């Protein structure tokens, strides 16, 4: 199967199918709702039902809701009508994230999108599908990266919040608007800790509740009512909080929190290395269990990760595309 890597996305010319294209195209698959993967303006869009819900929420504001969106059911083939059929496969990353299995000319290709193997706090577990050709991300594709499990991360998050509150300090968690932010709010509220949530994170909580996750008793951020609460805010909001006359302690929950120098970058004291991307050993395991003979690596440490795979006897290459914006910050 021919694959083209363009700065705007991945293209399968034999099937006339784009994956995560950032430019308007004829037919596009959206793996998940993070904005660097999901852009509007295509003539036809395929995605999971939950991804579509996020996009409609987000784009209703921008008045740019996806046109001609088709929702594909998990583990069911959908025929594109040109000798290609596609099938979404459950994937741990954020709610709604799916891998895409593409079958064409007797060959099976799997595009992971963003993926982790260990269970996430919110969303599906990853199912690994046997394939001939795998396109996998490598945001954390170096052996230095090894993350906490969801349970370990949850107890670190709760412990940190409780410790700060005991000392009359305000614990602040930095997490981006879709995914990490809600995971943290979910963990804290279910541990009975009062939480104030930044608007960008809060507005997507109802869409998570629809999926069956509880967020009991969270409140929107209000600068006049902060004491005794944990704050969950987007990273850019840190400067605003530092401008207030309150004692805050920042925790950074991210894959990048693996590295000590992330403290300097984020101003965090507590580092909780947990991500909705797989760590190094998870990525290796996904490659291994897929049985793919050919592997293309996109995003992040593409060259070093492909190099490591080649040493294991896999026909791997780094896809040379302009990297998508770094979202895990």
């Amino acid at each position, binding site marked *: 199967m021919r694959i083209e890597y363009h700065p705007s996305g991945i293209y399968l010319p034999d099937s006339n199918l784009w994956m995560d294209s950032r430019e308007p195209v004829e037919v596009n698959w959206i793996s998940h709702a993070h904005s660097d993967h999901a852009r509007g303006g295509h003539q036809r869009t395929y995605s999971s039902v939950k991804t579509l819900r996020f996009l409609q929420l987000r784009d209703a504001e921008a008045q740019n809701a996806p046109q001609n969106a088709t929702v594909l059911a998990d583990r069911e083939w959908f025929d594109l009508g040109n000798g290609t059929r596609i099938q979404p496969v459950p994937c741990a990353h954020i709610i709604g994230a799916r891998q895409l299995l593409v079958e064409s000319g007797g060959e099976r290709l799997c595009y992971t999108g963003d993926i982790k193997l260990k269970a996430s706090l919110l969303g599906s577990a990853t199912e690994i599908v046997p394939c001939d050709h795998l396109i996998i991300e490598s945001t954390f594709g*170096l*052996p*230095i990266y090894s993350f906490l499990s969801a349970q370990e991360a949850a107890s670190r998050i709760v412990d940190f919040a409780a410790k700060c509150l005991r000392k009359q300090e305000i614990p602040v968690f930095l997490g981006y608007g879709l995914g990490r932010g809600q995971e943290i709010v979910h963990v804290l509220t279910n541990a009975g800790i009062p939480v104030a949530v930044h608007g960008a994170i809060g507005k997507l909580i109802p869409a998570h509740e629809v999926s069956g996750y509880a967020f009991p008793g969270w409140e929107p951020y209000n600068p006049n009512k902060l004491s005794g609460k944990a704050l969950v805010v987007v990273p850019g909001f840190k*400067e605003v909080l530092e401008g207030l006359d309150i004692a805050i302690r920042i925790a950074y929950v991210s894959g990048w929190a693996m590295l*000590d*120098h992330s403290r300097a970058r984020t101003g965090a004291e507590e580092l909780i290395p947990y991500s909705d991307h797989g760590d190094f050993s998870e990525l290796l395991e996904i490659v291994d269990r897929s049985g793919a003979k050919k592997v293309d690596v996109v995003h992040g440490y593409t060259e070093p990760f492909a190099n490591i795979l080649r040493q294991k006897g896999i026909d791997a290459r780094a896809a040379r595309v302009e990297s998508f914006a770094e979202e895990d910050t």
Partner: protein
Amino acid sequence: MDEFALTCERIAATGSHLEKIAILAEYFSQLDDENLTRAIRFLTGNPVASAPREQTLFGFEDPPKLAIGHATLRRALQLATGWDLETLRQCQRAVGDTGETVGHLLRDRSKGENLPLCLAEDLLFQLLAERQPTRRESLLVEAFKRHRPLALKYLVKSLSGNFRIGLLSKMVEEAVALSTASPIADLRAANNLAGDLAKTAIAARKGQLSQIEVRLFHPMDFMLAKPLPDPLPDTVLKTLSAGSWLVEDKYDGIRVQVHIENGLVEIYTRGFERVTSTFPELVHAFGSMTGAAILDGEILAWQGDRSLPFTVLQQRLARKKVNRSMMESNPVVFVSYDILYRDGRLLLDCPLEERRSCLEQALSRTKIRIAPQSRLQDVTTLEMLFGHARANGNEGLILKQSGSSYETAKRSGSWLKIKKVFATLDVVVTAAEQGHGKRASMLSDYTFAVLDGNQYLNIGKAYSGLTDTEIRDLTKLLKSIVIGRYGNRVLQVVPSVVLEVGFDGIQRSLRHKSGFALRFPRILRWRTDKAPKDCDTLDRVRDLYESTLNLTANRNIDKE
């Protein structure tokens, strides 16, 4: 090392200085004397300080230093983990710290044996004694496989002495004071005399701080001058008029401390670096001095009766060992202006005038120069005195308060310096480089250029002066305008960011395309209000350069 490492991790995980000190003090108080000594030596980047060192005919041997290169560490890591060198290089680059990389890569690979501090020290002694690289590697590999990753992270960090946990050396002193219930001022003073915090800590434990005696041949703290704003505000002028002040020229050389005893001479810089072998003629000049002394002063490039530009001195500094022709082409002198110790007597608390006469006496039978000093009669003469100082090739003026003691704790205000920015330029950033340590994830070093016709010609590089927030914003902006890459770290960018830089001088240089280089360039402001076409031109740079030539023309020192 395991407890030590856990303590360091806890220190890193709080931004509060007081908490850092409290954590360290608590750890210190759990250690016996021997382990306290070891822990302090590890923390102060001197883990093998207690290895034997010899006094030779020409002075002391260099203190033992464990020079384990990146290459040795990487090969040991390769052997211990099985990762190829390219992967290791990528990991090292992502992490930005060798110890931390070691810790990450050895996760789940070691046997998890304890590494007591005495064993860690012993391992370092073995590495120190081992000259053969392959044997050193196997010592490291063995340790890598045996002990816990966290202990190894800090063992490797202690080789460079750079822990990157936000712990300043003065905070280690405070932790010692806290854990031994000693007043911090007493502890600092004692440590300044002993030059050995571990020894000082043990004395503090026994309540014997006052018994610590001055020991020569370790650099003591320097007294620093507080910079005065330019032009001098009225409040400062008032303070100066009200008090009694002595004036000296501020020299443009290298500030050093010279220790002399029984014919032995050592010279230390403000960075506490020993530079004795770079200046053999100075060692010789002190030969005629009797008794013991610690002198404070400045090394200057010198010819006839005046000092030469700093560049001449710089060429000397580039050499560890100098030959005769270098000594002739780039002659240096030491100009002394203070004395801290004389024949068993510590002079730090003596008034300035008393130290001065002691200095004059000590040097009476030598040819060592003493900085001319005069009493400030009237603040209105400062402008004229400044002009004289500049005409003599010096940087500015230094004012010393009459009767003041030699205060090393902070810039006390008893010494004041008047120094003017030579000029400022608006320049355009053409390339940016990843920083180190705390700034490893940011673009914090900038190469900048001036305009010549319609092209930008590089003239220098600077990495200080902006706030962390500004650097973060600038990093974001610069990353969006990258047009190329030199090597691994340097990004070439579209010339669009304008910075105002101040500097102390200008000289010809082959390093930059403009043909000029700036001395001590520092970023004063990010000029968001200016477009690149508004930046300064090469013509202006040329004019500035010529103006300095005129100033020094009659000195015939420009060797262009």
